[in-house]
């Protein structure tokens, strides 16, 4: 369905070809296509602006202007710069003495509970002893959901119903982990809006009593322009250590990953690639860059 960026740029340069050597304004025309592609991929408006400024310097250089294949050259530069911005894949930080607490946070419906189970499965397979914690006391049947998932992957779930504060549940879970020698504690927190003061305070309390090694923001690949504000909102209250993008098994371009990475600077750690608990992939910058460009 998408006409790829390369084709669009080719069309731009074909129109200009007759004029001989490319001018700076020719390159700017091409960069407008790049801007459009990034906006269609849901990269934030302001991030796009800064990104284009950043690649303009390279694009008006000799690399492109003297090239016989300027369209390919522009795509190459954009692709390289995207990879650079997306950053290197970083594994989970499980240094320090166990139990390591991993806390998942994010908007409603982003995929936190599913991701908690996916991480538990991955950790169990790598020889860890994970404990899942039902710290969402609000969403109807959130505890049952986590218990069902825990059973599917043979990982225990700590829950205390819906009347105990999330921070208490989390704290008790860490103590239990020490007693029973669980090596990782994965906290499934309730979905919340970054502007919900009371709910953000709850996250701060959970963090305070559990001292997580990882606080991971779970972001839906379909998220639009507001991804930056969401990420900033969470990052201000509970300093994030990583991002996870879910639902990339669909046809969303996933530009939100770039926006979030750009404003928070924290690394992207994993991608959720389906509803099954094995559907988890480490993040690969080159693939995500191609996806964002619709290639």
């Amino acid at each position, binding site marked *: 369905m998408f006409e790829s960026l390369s084709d669009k740029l080719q069309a731009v340069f074909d129109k200009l070809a007759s004029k001989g050597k490319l001018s700076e304004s020719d390159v700017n025309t091409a960069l407008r296509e790049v801007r459009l592609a990034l906006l269609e*991929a*849901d990269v*934030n408006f302001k991030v796009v602006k800064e990104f284009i400024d950043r690649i303009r310097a390279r694009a008006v250089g000799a690399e492109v202007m003297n090239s016989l294949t300027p369209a390919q050259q522009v795509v190459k530069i954009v692709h390289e710069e995207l990879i650079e911005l997306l950053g290197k894949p970083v594994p989970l930080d499980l240094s320090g003495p166990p139990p390591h607490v991993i806390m998942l946070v994010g908007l*409603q*419906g982003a*995929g936190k509970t599913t991701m908690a189970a996916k991480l538990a499965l991955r950790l169990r397979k790598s020889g860890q002893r994970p404990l899942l914690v039902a710290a969402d006391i609000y969403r109807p049947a959130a505890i049952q*959901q986590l218990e069902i998932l825990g059973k599917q992957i043979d990982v225990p779930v700590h829950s205390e119903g819906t009347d105990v504060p999330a921070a208490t549940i989390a704290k008790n879970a860490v103590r239990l982990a020490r007693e029973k020698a669980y090596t990782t504690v994965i906290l499934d927190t309730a979905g919340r809006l970054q502007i919900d003061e009371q709910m953000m305070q709850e996250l701060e309390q959970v963090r305070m009593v559990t001292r997580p090694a990882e606080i991971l923001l779970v972001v839906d690949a379909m998220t*639009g322009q507001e991804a930056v504000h969401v990420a900033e909102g969470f990052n201000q209250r509970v300093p994030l250590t990583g991002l996870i993008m879910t639902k990339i098994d*669909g046809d969303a371009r996933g530009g939100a990953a770039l926006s979030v990475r750009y404003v928070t600077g924290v690394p992207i750690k994993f991608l959720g690639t389906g509803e099954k608990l094995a559907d988890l992939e480490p993040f690969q910058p080159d693939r995500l860059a191609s996806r964002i460009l619709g290639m």
Partner: protein
Amino acid sequence: FQENEITEALWEELEETLIMGDVGVATTMELVERTRDRVEREGIKSTRDAYLVLKQEMVRLLESDEPLHIDEPRILTVVLVVGVNGSGKTTTIGKMAHYYKQRGRKVVLGAADTFRAAAIDQLKIWAERAGVDVIAHEPGADPGAVVYDAIRASQESRKADLLIVDTAGRLQTKFNLMKELEKIRGVASKLVHRAPHEVLLVLDASTGQNAISQAKSFKESAGVTGIVLTKLDGTSKGGAVLSIKRELGVPVRFVGTGEKLEDFALFDPVAFVEGLLGDS
């Protein structure tokens, strides 16, 4: 005599506001273009009036003449609720049950998401909050069979006039899962004349340009007739619905504005557009 306040910077600012509201580039350009034409034609000179024109154009695009089929008198109205994973379907159904119960309808819910862990338990909790019945099978059961039973029960033992069916979340690119929706439609249409009478696509307001792909695919496979725009209590504006209306003609019907039973309302284009444009 009025001095002309309208400059190129204004048009750029409007473009930025719309794109940041997830309206999408093509629809943004068209709306701004139309506003510029009218500003010229109508001799408008103040920024305030230019905004008013844009607002009018956006509201006009969002308004729909098509009646909402849920409100028509009918022995049994069947509403099918569809959408991608986590958009807010089950929650919306709980709120919608409450909304229509309050308006004197006898509502039953059909738990045709037999796939997602604890989806049935979740719907049952919502049904209890709203004070309506649920027809459910065991996890893993055939959704078509659930719909069959839910319609039968609505017609016979429960004497309901409104059945709302929950379905499992699915990404629009999953061919087999989209086929399943066609099957569910088939079951409904065999048992009730012209059912489903409304097929509502539940769309998360924080969704960006993928919303258009969702609307296209769910319209094709499930015959979507309207949209419920959820999570409007967040900071996202949900502007993608303008592109959906422009490209596919599918109107927004309801909005979700929170996680409580009452956080649900009919879609109001004026309020929506004001939210999108901010205090400008």
